[in-house]
């Protein structure tokens, strides 16, 4: 299909739209509160009230304000969009009647709320606007034009240069420069190359990737296709967790639709470029978020990591050069191609460019997804956008980076959110989970919670991680049961160091972070639980040099 044919298709699609659009959020969060029934009732009610000529009910993806769901946005009624919150299936008649000015007692949200106003949406630009199950909707907002531009006007090396200029860094957590990674894969020799999208969002408390895949699957597919052209790959794999059935079914639909229009498959846009994407479904293993483990899983094996080098860019899937990026990284690509790398580099801080999506959850008033420019102070996110702790509580700390991250105490809320600042505080950016804890939360319990997670998710391949996390968990259990002594605490700290420096992959290397960061900032909570040592203080041990050891 040529671009003109696509434009004709889009014009027809836009022409068929009606004046008033009721956008019903149909992502997993709202679906659990009967969003599907709400949509059905709204459609029936529009018919019953004879408004079919002007009103349409559209299925859309996540609008972000999940805590207030189910949400319904109304377009075309006034200059500003209207937002209904906490909608129930029985509210349908009142909502449809309100379109003609009738009074309606459904709670109306404020679209100017800082939760929305402070956001800058690049990755989630189409979330809550397009119908994720109709490719025409994505095309109508300029979808697949970046791919067309890349295929017809740019050399692969120019695409890599554009991404390098943008300063985009991997959104999976580690923050490796994306342009550099693409350049390495492009330069690697090999007849067959692969592009893999890491959608194994295992961090508890994070659901950004889920929302992107459910709300706007095509933006990820287009980003992957552009990457494939840039590095010279013709086969892609999209690895998604089995816990996200809705995302999987929407991706399957999206791939089918893109293939039907010739935007995936053979001869894309009638060029010699071929690219196919297969979905690979995970099976509930946190370690598969690690790239070498993920590759093993794609190959149908146990998801155990292997030492690097060789890096996947040189020897990945079946020994071929492989580009692995996170869902959010791929979702940034079309915007960078459409608006230029220099534009993207103008957003954010010196070393962290662009925006980042965070899942703001826990003990906070406004739960949901936000996309903010890098470098925004944590306080603005938590207090202004999040509205602070619910009544009667005070924010004690913010946990970022899941089991690999740490707890940032309230005193450091003015820290700018970027890769380096968070690392300095002993936490990490991670994939973007942000769990707020108030003073009712016991930090030692939280450390134990994460350690139990790491212990159970350790793949068991290397001993420091397999045995170290188990020992640390037992020590934490002992301390929380008020059976621990100062000796146990010292042992715990020693183990933190050992596990961090001797584990094979990222899971083990970062597993001690939640313990180390809570020990650093909330040590008194640990000490309050300690019992006097019956054998007196422990003789000091000189620890050996902490050089990282490669297995």
């Amino acid at each position: 299909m040529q671009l003109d044919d696509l434009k004709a298709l889009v014009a027809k699609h836009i022409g068929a739209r009606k004046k008033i659009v009721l956008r019903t959020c149909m992502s997993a969060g709202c679906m659990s509160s009967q969003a599907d029934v709400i949509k059905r009732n709204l459609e029936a009610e529009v018919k019953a009230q004879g408004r079919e000529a002007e009103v349409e009910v559209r299925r859309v993806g996540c609008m972000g304000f999940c805590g207030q769901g189910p949400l319904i946005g109304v377009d075309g009624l006034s200059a500003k969009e209207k937002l209904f919150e906490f909608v129930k299936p029985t509210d349908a008649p009142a909502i449809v009647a309100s379109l003609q000015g009738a009074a309606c007692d459904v709670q109306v949200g404020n679209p100017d709320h800082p939760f929305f106003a402070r956001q800058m949406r690049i990755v989630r630009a189409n979330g809550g606007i397009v119908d994720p199950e109709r490719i025409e909707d994505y095309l109508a907002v300029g979808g697949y034009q970046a791919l067309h531009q890349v295929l017809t006007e740019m050399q692969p090396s120019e695409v890599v240069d554009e991404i390098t200029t943008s300063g985009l860094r991997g959104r999976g957590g580690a923050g490796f420069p994306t342009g550099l990674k693409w350049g390495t894969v492009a330069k690697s020799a090999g007849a067959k190359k692969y592009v893999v999208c890491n959608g194994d969002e295992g961090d508890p408390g994070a659901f950004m990737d889920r929302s992107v895949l459910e709300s706007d699957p095509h933006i990820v597919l287009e980003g992957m296709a552009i990457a494939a052209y840039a590095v010279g790959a013709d086969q892609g794999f999209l690895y998604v967790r089995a816990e996200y059935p809705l995302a999987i079914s929407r991706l399957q639909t999206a791939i089918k639709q893109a293939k039907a229009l010739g935007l995936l498959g053979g001869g894309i846009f009638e060029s010699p470029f071929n690219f196919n994407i297969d979905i690979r479904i995970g099976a509930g293993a946190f370690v598969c978020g690690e790239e070498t483990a993920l590759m093993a899983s794609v190959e149908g094996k146990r998801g155990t990591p292997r030492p690097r080098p060789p890096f996947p860019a040189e020897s990945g899937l079946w020994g071929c050069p492989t580009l692995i990026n996170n869902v959010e990284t791929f979702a940034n690509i079309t915007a960078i191609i459409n608006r230029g790398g220099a534009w993207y580099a103008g957003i954010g801080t010196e070393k962290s460019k662009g925006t980042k999506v965070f899942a703001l959850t826990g003990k906070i008033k406004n739960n949901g997804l936000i996309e903010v420019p890098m470098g925004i102070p944590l306080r603005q996110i938590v207090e202004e956008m999040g509205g602070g702790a619910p009544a009667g509580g005070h924010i004690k700390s913010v946990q970022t980076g899941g089991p690999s991250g740490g707890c940032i105490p309230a005193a450091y809320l003015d820290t700018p959110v970027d890769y380096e600042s968070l690392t300095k505080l002993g936490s990490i950016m991670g994939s973007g989970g942000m769990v707020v804890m108030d003073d009712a939360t016991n930090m030692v319990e939280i450390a134990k919670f994460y350690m139990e997670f790491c212990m159970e998710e350790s793949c068991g391949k290397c001993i420091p991680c397999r045995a170290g996390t188990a020992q640390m968990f037992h020590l934490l259990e002992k301390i929380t049961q008020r059976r621990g002594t100062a000796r146990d605490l010292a042992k715990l700290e020693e183990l933190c160091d050992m596990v961090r420096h001797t584990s094979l992959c990222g899971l083990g290397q970062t597993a001690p972070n939640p313990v180390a960061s809570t020990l650093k900032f909330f040590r008194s909570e640990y000490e309050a639980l300690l019992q006097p040592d019956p054998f007196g203080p422990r003789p000091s041990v000189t620890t050996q040099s902490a050089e990282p050891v490669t297995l």
Partner: protein
Amino acid sequence: MLPLLTREKNADRVLRHASGDKRFKILEVHMKKHQFRQDALIEVLHKAQELFGFLEDDLLLFIAAKLKLPPSRVFGVATFYHFFTLKPQGEHTCVVCLGTACYVKGADKIMAAIQEKYRIKAGETTPDNQLSLLTARCIGACGIAPAVTFDGHVAPKLTPEATLEKLNTLI
């Protein structure tokens, strides 16, 4: 554990199953769709669990034979991933999300309430085979925490009381 079977007996059992139960046929068609590729093992296991509810030893041997993989490899993969279960499940399943957001909002109390009332631990099934209690690492429903999945349907913002009530109506 896998029973120690001789090669002949092994093939015999696979054949008997393959001819008797229709679901084996469906599974074989699914494998054919993947051209019996060995890297599709996880996809095949997903399908097998969907059809049979859990992965029995015979079923794993059947898959191993069809994909020309050693049984150890199939068994190794099936036991590595949490999603696969080698034990039969009860009539109903209740999956309590223990992700961080759910945890700080009281998922541990929900868990304790269910454990106390039904006298089962996570991963166990009640003696009358009515309810299997499972836990999830994070189902990505953090905006509506704490969340529990009843027979595949996610219920938002629960309390221990509301959860027990839901289970009462379910069973």
